[in-house]
C-alpha cells in the first residue's frame, strides 16, 4: 500500500515539476506547481509529519500559488513565451549542468548520508498522529523560540516591503501611466 502510494505520488510530483518547467503558459505552470506541492504534502503525511503537511497545503498550495496566479492575471503575462533563445546554447548548457547537479545530489542522497547522532532525549522524538503536533510545538516554543520570534519580524518586514515596493514602482514615473493600468488586466484578454 505504502509502496504503491509512494510511486503514484512520486510520478505526480515529478510530472508536475516537469510541467512547471516545460509548459509555455505561466498559468499552467502555476497549476502544475500545485500538483507537485500536494504530492510533497502527501510525502510529509507518509513520514508522520502531519502538521507540516497541513501547513504545506495551507501556505504553499493555497496562499503562495494564489498569489502567483493573481500576479499573472494582474500583469497579463499569460501569453506564451517565444522559443528563440538570445544566448546561444543556453538550453543545452542548462540541461548538462542540471544533469551534473543531479549526479552529485544522487551521489550524496543515494547512500545513507544521515551521519548525525540520533536524538537521545524523549523530548525531541517525533510521534505519529496528534502527538506530532504536540512534539513540534514543544520543540518550536522551547528550543527554537528565538528564531520563531524573529520570523514574526521577518514577515512584518516582508509585508511592509512588498507594499512599499509595489506602490513606489508606479509612483516614480509620474501620473501619466496611471490611467491605462486599471484597464490592463481586463483589456488584454
Amino acid at each position: 500500500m505504502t509502496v504503491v502510494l509512494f510511486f503514484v505520488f512520486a510520478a505526480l510530483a515529478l510530472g508536475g515539476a516537469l510541467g512547471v518547467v516545460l509548459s509555455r503558459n505561466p498559468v499552467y505552470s502555476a497549476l502544475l506547481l500545485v500538483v507537485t506541492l500536494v504530492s510533497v504534502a502527501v510525502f510529509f503525511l507518509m513520514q508522520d509529519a502531519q502538521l507540516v503537511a497541513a501547513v504545506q497545503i495551507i501556505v504553499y498550495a493555497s496562499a503562495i500559488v494564489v498569489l502567483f496566479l493573481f500576479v499573472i492575471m494582474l500583469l497579463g503575462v499569460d501569453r506564451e513565451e517565444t522559443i528563440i533563445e538570445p544566448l546561444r546554447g543556453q538550453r543545452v548548457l542548462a540541461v548538462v549542468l542540471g544533469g551534473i547537479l543531479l549526479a552529485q545530489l544522487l551521489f550524496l542522497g543515494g547512500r545513507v548520508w544521515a551521519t548525525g547522532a540520533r536524538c537521545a532525549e524523549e523530548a525531541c522524538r517525533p510521534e505519529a498522529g496528534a502527538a506530532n503536533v504536540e512534539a513540534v510545538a514543544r520543540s518550536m516554543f522551547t528550543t527554537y523560540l528565538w528564531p520563531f520570534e524573529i520570523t514574526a519580524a521577518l514577515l512584518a518586514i516582508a509585508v511592509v516591503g512588498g507594499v512599499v515596493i509595489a506602490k513606489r514602482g508606479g509612483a516614480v514615473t509620474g501620473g501619466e501611466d496611471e490611467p491605462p493600468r486599471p484597464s490592463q488586466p481586463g483589456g488584454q484578454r
Partner: protein
Amino acid sequence: MTITGNYYLVLASLIFSIGAVGLLVRRNVLVMFMCIELMLNAVNLTFVTFSNMLDDVSGQVLVFFTLVVAAAEVAVGLALIVAIFKRRETATADDLNLLEG
C-alpha cells in the same frame, strides 16, 4: 519492499534538479520564481526525511522556518516583479539588462 528514506532523498534530488534546470532555462520571471519554489520544496522534503530517519523533530521545525522565508520571499519578489512590470512592460528576464530603472 519498503520505502526507506533513500527513496525520498532521491526523489527530492530529482525535484531539486528539475527546479534548477527550469531556473536556468526559462526566461519568464514568474516561472523562474516557481522553479525556486520547487527547489525550496525539495529541500523541505529532505528536511522531513532526515527528521524521520534520525527521530528528531527539529527537521520539521526547520521546515516551518523555510516556509516563512519562502512566503516572505514570494511577497517581496512578486512586488518587485509588479514594480518592474509597471516601469518596463516586460516580465522576461532578458529584457532587464539595465541596472537603472
